[in-house]
């Protein structure tokens, strides 16, 4: 398959450029739009120009293309100005006057109006409150901030008319959603629309629905002005107005028996869903399910509330909520075992559900590789003997467990279609009509097809370039390529192999994924398996803190996981290692303040992202499993931040209450420790 170009590199003849006109208040009503006089060849389109539906729908919720009346966040698009000269377009946009009526913005916090509630889950088992009087009670509050994707290429879409069809070029994780969305907005048959995915780079799950919104805005302008229209965000615009991961406040209360067993768990989770959050249903489910992690908890009450606020849209980013709650759970756990005189490994193995027969193996692997038990004991002893924080080496080591859920949870999965067509040509080449860009996944698929059909890798080609030549698939997320697409490839190849020497070539086989998992999951009791598969993992981080500058240095990072049958070890290791950097950034670097409902430009300019050369030594270990291959794309996001905070907790003796952390906050944690001594 030819390498797709980058969207920002694509220019069509007579190219027009579009810039969005955005609301200048946080919440209110749009009374009037006063546009400046437009020069010839420049156009301004608003909600009234939309021929179809003024919304993008995904997973049961929707986002307006242009707000017609209600303003729900600062920077909400109210229209688009297009024209041939980008600098003129920017000037025109700055001259648009919006007459508005301000309303009190919706805020994020414990107190919220009933109208702010966009979703909730309350699940319980037994009577957990009764356990608190008879056991040791632990309580913690964790605040998790927003997280940006920081793509290399800012968000961009370019739309033009080619052979009487609308061609949309954009980097998207879900090309068919772009097509469906634009079709509804323009009231155009989807056969009239071709979506050509451009090079995506690392998506970090920020390109699931947002490109559809941008595509609808550009397509509207392109159809009305009959010119190719390109919207290309600047880095700042991307930072200020694209979706972020939903911030959360998570409160844990646990009742722990003197022997260390978890008797009860009460969890309250508040999610800032922003003004719009099309993926919120899935986030709520995943965050609720992950609240008990891998632990065996018989009595629990988990309450999750997603709250609408007057903030820009909040999405998932890698981890889909699991990352936030597993961080809160593991940092809560880090305060428990020192008080019940068990080592972290003993406590975890004592309380973990023994669903996965490989879990003990994971602990053995990682303890051997990292020398965790010895180091933990040594650092604990050093910490106890230390007179003050400048006395001796400040080192700590933390161990955490968790998982990555692969595939969507049943309800969402049912509404998404995944299909695949594979053809063996007369010359023996195998054509797979997929548009997967990941080289690692391509290699794994090739290996699988090659082993089933006994053909060379170089005879296998991916031919999905656009929505006309690709099989219809759902979003490329939650390791769907491994959890869904790979089994489909196996099915197609097995079917071809059966027919191969009985029927003449070419042979074309089409298979569609059907969910059949509804009976395996009880969401009230958390029994069963909610996902297609779960990648269980254990992570260890060793940390050193400079007592003068309060900067941290990661000495070592180990991650052991049950990835099922590992088809390509190098690819699997690379997949995990490359996600370590954004995972570490979640805790260390990426600060986003939300002030009066808006992200701040200064954060965009100062946003710290770890670069490959700053990464510490990393060891990846796999259990000896022959299970179906499992996803690895977000396992680092789900575990690494918690491993960092556990290691820091050993150094400081205090748990980390919020992420991301900067040097100032680490200093504050330390000073509190000193004050208490």
């Amino acid at each position: 398959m030819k390498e797709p170009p980058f969207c920002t590199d694509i220019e069509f003849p007579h190219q027009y450029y579009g810039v969005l006109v955005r609301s200048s208040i946080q919440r209110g009503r749009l009374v009037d739009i006063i546009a400046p006089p437009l020069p010839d060849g420049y156009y301004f389109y608003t909600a009234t120009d939309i021929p179809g539906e003024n919304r993008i729908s995904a997973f049961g919720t929707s986002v307006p293309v242009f707000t017609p009346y209600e303003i729900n966040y600062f920077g909400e698009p109210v229209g688009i100005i297009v024209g041939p000269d980008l600098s003129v377009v920017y000037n025109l946009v700055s001259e648009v006057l919006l007459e508005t009526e301000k309303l009190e913005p919706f805020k994020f916090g414990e107190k919220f109006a009933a109208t702010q509630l966009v979703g909730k889950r309350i699940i319980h088992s037994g009577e957990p409150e009764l356990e608190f009087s008879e056991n040791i009670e632990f309580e913690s509050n964790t605040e998790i901030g927003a997280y940006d994707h920081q793509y290399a290429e800012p968000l961009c879409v370019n739309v033009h008319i080619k052979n009487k069809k609308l061609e949309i070029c954009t980097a998207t994780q879900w090309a068919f959603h772009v097509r469906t969305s634009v079709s509804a907005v323009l009231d155009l048959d989807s056969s009239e629309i071709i979506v050509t995915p451009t090079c995506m780079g690392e998506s970090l799950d920020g390109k699931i629905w947002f490109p559809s919104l941008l595509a609808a805005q550009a397509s509207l302008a392109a159809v009305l002005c009959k010119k190719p229209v390109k919207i290309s965000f600047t880095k700042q615009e991307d930072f200020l107005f694209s979706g972020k991961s939903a911030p959360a406040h998570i409160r844990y209360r646990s009742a722990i028996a003197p022997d260390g067993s978890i008797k009860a768990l009460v969890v309250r989770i508040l999610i800032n869903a922003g003004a719009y959050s099309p993926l919120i249903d899935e986030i709520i489910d995943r965050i609720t399910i992950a609240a008990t992690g891998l632990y065996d908890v018989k009595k629990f009450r988990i309450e999750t509330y997603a709250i609408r606020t007057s903030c820009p849209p909040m999405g998932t980013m890698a981890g889909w909520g699991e990352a936030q709650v597993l961080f809160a759970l593991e940092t809560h756990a880090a305060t428990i075992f020192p008080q019940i005189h068990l080592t972290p490994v003993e406590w975890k193995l004592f309380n973990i559900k023994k669903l996965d027969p490989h879990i003990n193996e994971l602990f053995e692997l990682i303890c051997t590789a990292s020398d965790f038990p010895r180091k933990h004991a040594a650092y604990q002893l050093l910490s106890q003997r230390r007179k003050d924080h400048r006395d001796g080496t400040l080192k700590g080591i933390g161990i955490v467990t968790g998982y990555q859920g692969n595939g969507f949870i049943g309800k969402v999965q049912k509404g998404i279609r995944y299909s695949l067509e594979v053809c063996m040509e007369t010359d023996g080449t195998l054509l797979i009509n997929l548009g997967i860009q990941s080289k690692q996944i391509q290699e794994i698929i090739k290996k699988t097809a090659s082993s089933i059909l006994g053909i060379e890798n170089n005879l296998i080609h991916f031919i999905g370039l656009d929505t006309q030549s690709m099989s219809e698939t759902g979003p490329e997320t939650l390791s769907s390529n491994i959890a869904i697409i790979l089994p489909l490839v196996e099915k197609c190849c097995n079917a071809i192999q059966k027919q191969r020497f009985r029927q003449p070539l070419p042979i074309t086989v089409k298979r569609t994924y059907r969910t059949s998992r509804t009976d395996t999951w009880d969401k009230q009791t958390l029994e069963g398996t909610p996902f297609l598969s779960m990648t269980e993992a254990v992570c260890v981080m060793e940390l050193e803190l400079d007592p003068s500058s309060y900067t941290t240095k990661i000495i070592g990072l180990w991650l052991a996981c049950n990835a099922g049958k590992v088809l390509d070890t190098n690819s699997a290791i690379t997949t995990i290692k490359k996600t370590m950097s954004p995972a570490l950034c979640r805790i260390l670097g990426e600060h986003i303040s939300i002030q009066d409902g808006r992200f701040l430009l200064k954060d965009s300019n100062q946003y710290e992202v770890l670069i490959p050369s700053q990464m510490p030594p990393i060891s990846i270990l796999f259990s000896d499993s022959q299970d179906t291959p499992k996803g690895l794309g977000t396992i680092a996001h789900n575990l690494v931040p918690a491993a960092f905070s556990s290691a820091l907790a050993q150094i400081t003796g205090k748990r980390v209450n919020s992420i991301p952390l900067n040097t100032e906050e680490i200093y504050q944690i330390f000073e509190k420790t000193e004050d208490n001594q």
Partner: protein
Amino acid sequence: MIIPFELNGEMVYADSNPGERLVHILRTRFHLLSPKESCLSGRCGSCMILMDGNPVLSCILPVFQVRNAHLVTLESFSLTPDYADIKEGFENAGVNMCGFCNAGKIFVTHALLNQTLRPTTAEIREQFSGILCRCTTIDELISGVKKAAGIRRKRNNDE
């Protein structure tokens, strides 16, 4: 203001505001798309080009500074044997490249190999300290640079 400079072996003249970012001029006037406009603050390395043989960040370079300089972008550099060494080394090491920051990765490797054909791990880490790449790992890059150095050594010996 008209600014003369040599671009990929040809003398060119850019009529522009002297403070304009070089990357913007390269992309829009000369349609050279290998330098990318990303961070625009010199932090990611995606806009890298060679200026008089040294890697520079064209997003923070005002165009007046390139008067009479010799500029090479990846479009031209990719036709050279030096590029072929690096490409082969990276491919052999399985360096995963989406392509967005290729210019940065390639040019810092080229600069390092010009200094030494036996780069140490520490030197490679240091050299890549200005490259923000989301889709590869430092281990792959270290391996890729060392393999490229080996290929360059072999080519030099052969010559």
